[in-house]
């Protein structure tokens, strides 16, 4: 298979170089090599998407409207918006435009997921392991996804620092980072951090904690240490200010792990907490309350519907699967009505992927909130746009189609929740990062093989 795939890849490359049809498609086409050197279409300064159905996720749906994009921002949106002179026009006739999809739980661009050696690894950073050529990113673009929350894995009670990124596929890795997004950190509770589902080899030691009580103790211990550490630094700062010349105090020892936790205590770093069962969600809320911070989002939170009032009262968001369940014991009470039930109780809910696969079709996942529990169309749309943006603290920038926001948009060939719909184009900052017309589709690959090897070779093997 490998050989054949390589041959096909070679066909793609050689045909792209020789054929005229291929020429215009050459840029983002190759999905196998040289990704770094392939140019992404330059950003047009002025773009207009005309005559489209615009689902704003904030102010309803405009049946036939225009979006004007200037320097990557939405400059105008509405039914009676004129196309400015000189704008690059994208004909939206028959198309549906939604805000670029925000996936609040992803590992797509990460070269590594878990620093699983200890149960507290607040010092490690996902932004250090991002790769811009992760193919999952391209497939997600092709599913209308524009922003990802790249999280550390769930092996640890307190995992690493997450990276909020825009799916600027093809640009250098540094360009992925979402400028100005608040920093965050991954927490995890339950079976994964207890490591009760894994096979322990002979001679291998079990890691603390093994119970949900131990998880709580670990959290309290870590934040108590962080409080102490913070007091030491505050005392040092005071002493330094009042110190006489030549008598500068000795600073406390710098601790990168506790630095991150102090930021949590000070509300400068958002906590995204992997969780399943109601009891552990309540435990986390209590710990957060006792230490004076807010959990920005509970991730998975499959039993969130049991304690929705408590989550809502704490001002935490909930980022859940549409219908995943039964894959482990703590997912046994998961119900697909989770998202709508929590939303009914006042929780801001997002639907995430936690998967390179599901991320490609989050629009279909969002529609399940309508199927199970009867969420409104706009609420379902918000669950993959505005609500996850709010959970990540970037809702002033993305998540809805409003003037002043980043022009991150997904254009569908039909209603995004309809069965025959697919993404035709995805824009980030007004720049077209995915266009199905120039994308490496199966149809196009078959056409290339036809051109190269003759029509019978496409579907080959006549024995």
């Amino acid at each position, binding site marked *: *298979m490998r050989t054949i795939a390589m041959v096909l890849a070679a066909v793609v490359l050689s045909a792209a170089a020789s054929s005229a049809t291929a020429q215009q498609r050459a840029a983002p086409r190759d999905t196998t090599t040289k990704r770094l050197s392939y140019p992404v279409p330059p950003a047009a300064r002025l773009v207009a998407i005309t005559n489209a159905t615009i689902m704003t996720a904030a102010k309803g749906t405009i049946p036939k409207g225009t979006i004007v994009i200037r320097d990557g921002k939405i400059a105008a949106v509405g039914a009676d918006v004129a196309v400015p002179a000189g704008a690059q026009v994208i004909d939206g006739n028959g198309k549906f435009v939604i805000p670029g999809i925000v996936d609040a739980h992803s590992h797509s661009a990460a070269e590594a997921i878990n620093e699983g050696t200890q149960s507290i690894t607040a010092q490690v950073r996902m932004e250090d392991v991002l790769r811009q050529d992760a193919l999952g990113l391209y*497939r997600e673009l092709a599913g209308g996804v524009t922003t990802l929350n790249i999280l550390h894995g769930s092996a640890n009670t307190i995992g690493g620092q997450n990276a909020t990124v825009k799916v600027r596929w093809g640009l250098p890795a540094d360009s992925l980072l979402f400028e100005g997004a608040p920093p965050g950190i991954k927490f995890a509770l339950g079976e994964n951090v207890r490591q009760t589902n894994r096979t322990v080899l002979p001679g291998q030691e079990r890691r603390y904690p093994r119970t949900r009580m131990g998880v709580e103790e670990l959290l309290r211990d870590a934040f108590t240490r962080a409080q102490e550490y913070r007091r030491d630094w505050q005392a040092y700062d005071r002493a330094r200010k009042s110190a006489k010349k030549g008598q500068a105090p000795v600073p406390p020892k710098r601790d990168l792990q506790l630095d991150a936790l102090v930021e949590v205590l000070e509300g400068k770093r958002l906590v995204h907490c992997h969780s399943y069962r109601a009891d552990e969600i309540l435990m986390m809320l209590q710990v957060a309350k006792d230490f004076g911070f807010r959990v920005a989002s509970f991730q998975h939170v499959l039993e969130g*519907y049991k304690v929705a009032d408590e989550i809502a009262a704490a001002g935490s968001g909930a980022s859940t699967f549409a219908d995943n369940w039964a894959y*482990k014991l703590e997912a046994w009470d998961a119900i697909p*009505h989770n998202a709508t039930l929590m939303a009914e109780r006042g929780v801001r809910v997002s639907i995430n992927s936690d998967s390179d696969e599901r991320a490609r079709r989050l629009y279909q996942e969002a529609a399940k909130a309508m199927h199970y529990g009867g969420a409104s169309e706009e609420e379902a749309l918000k669950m993959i746009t505005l609500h996850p943006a709010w959970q990540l603290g970037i809702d002033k920038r993305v998540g809805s189609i409003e003037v002043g926001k980043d022009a991150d948009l997904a254009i569908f060939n039909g209603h995004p*929740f309809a069965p025959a719909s697919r993404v035709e184009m995805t824009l980030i900052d007004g720049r077209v990062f995915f266009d199905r017309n120039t994308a490496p589709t*199966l149809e196009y690959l*078959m056409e290339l093989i036809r051109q190269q090897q003759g029509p019978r070779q496409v579907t080959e*093997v006549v024995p």
Partner: protein
Amino acid sequence: MTTPRMRIAECGVLMAIGLAALPLLAQSGPQSAPASTVVIRNATIVPVTSARIQNGTIVLRNGRIEAVGANVNAPSGATVIDGTGLFVYPGMIDAGTQLGLTEIGSVPGGEDTQEIGDFNPHNVAVTAVNPHSELIPVTRVNGVTTAITSAEGGLISGQAGLIDLMGWTPTDMAVRRQAAMVVNYPSLGGGGFGGGGGRFGGGDQSDAERRAELDRRTRALRSYFADAKAYADVKARAANGGARKLNQAMEAMIPVIRGEMPVIFDVTTADQIRGVLALADTFKLKVVLRGAREAWRLADTLAMRRIPVIVGPTTSVPGAEDPYDMTYANPGVLARAGVKIAFQTSDAANSRNLPYNAALAVAYGLDADAALRALTINAAEMFGVADRIGSLEPGKVANVVVTTGDPMDVRSVVRHLFIRGQPVPLDDRHTRLYEQFRARPRS
């Protein structure tokens, strides 16, 4: 939409009417109790094998479809359902699941999905199907009434059963207890999710080692079929007509070797498919390909040879060198070439997403009507039960789904469900938990 509470209430009434007649009607044998008659009127009826009927009526009696059409008179004494604004479809068939054989993935005690050893043709999945699995009601309330269920792994995983998703016992559920042999065709590994099977080797194996292992396993599979053929030949020539059963595994292979029992080959790549075709030529097998996300490479060949393909899950990620839409677009390419396709989820807990798998294929080029056939009648044809299930035709088993719209549209909701003519309550573990916690007093 109505609340689930209302739906459950409606179903409670229907349950009361229908429960008495559970002994299942597709099985031969006497019916122990008269089933009630149900009439659905004023609905858009989509028989699948013929044109859709606006304002149509369908009559279900004694577990069968008695009549379908625009001008059908409702028999007196029937339970009447007003289908205004609703759509009637045949129950959908998931042609690849582990339903009944698994419950909670991480709890080994409930898993009957993988046997030890490479060759288990004698293992019959229906034997271990738990009719009371919580996964089953969750699946059927989305309109999936029937499933192929089987173990996986090894080279010959065992015999798949075709089951309706309701019944007191595994035997009740079986439409065909021994519907097909499942073969996990060897691959080089790394084929990703979706029936690529026969994988082996870890990351520390060299390419040459992996190739050698693939060759070894391919030869082992081929020689097993050769043994089975020899066994069948010897038995056929035996003086006593081969009546003595000497080897359970070989006995199980006889219908396969005779070309009577379909063989589902779980494959991913074009190379594997070529291997399957060669094997089929040697042993004259009745082949059904499954998974097969590179089947587009051989679409014309498969059409010409009339080899059906169970595609999916479309919700699998293509290989690193593949076009981004390959798993979505593959079904459309096959169908346009004339290959008979059906769909599988290769799942259990979310077998309910079968129609949404098909929706992705429709979005990427599969004709919507072809998709409906692939979800219903085609699978029935592949396993020889198209005279009983897979469409809304008089005389067929009444596996009937009444929905608010296209079942491939996630927004559609099932309003009434009948399996073998029995009204099926639309509640499950999920609706029960939903109702329970929806009623939690606000704190």
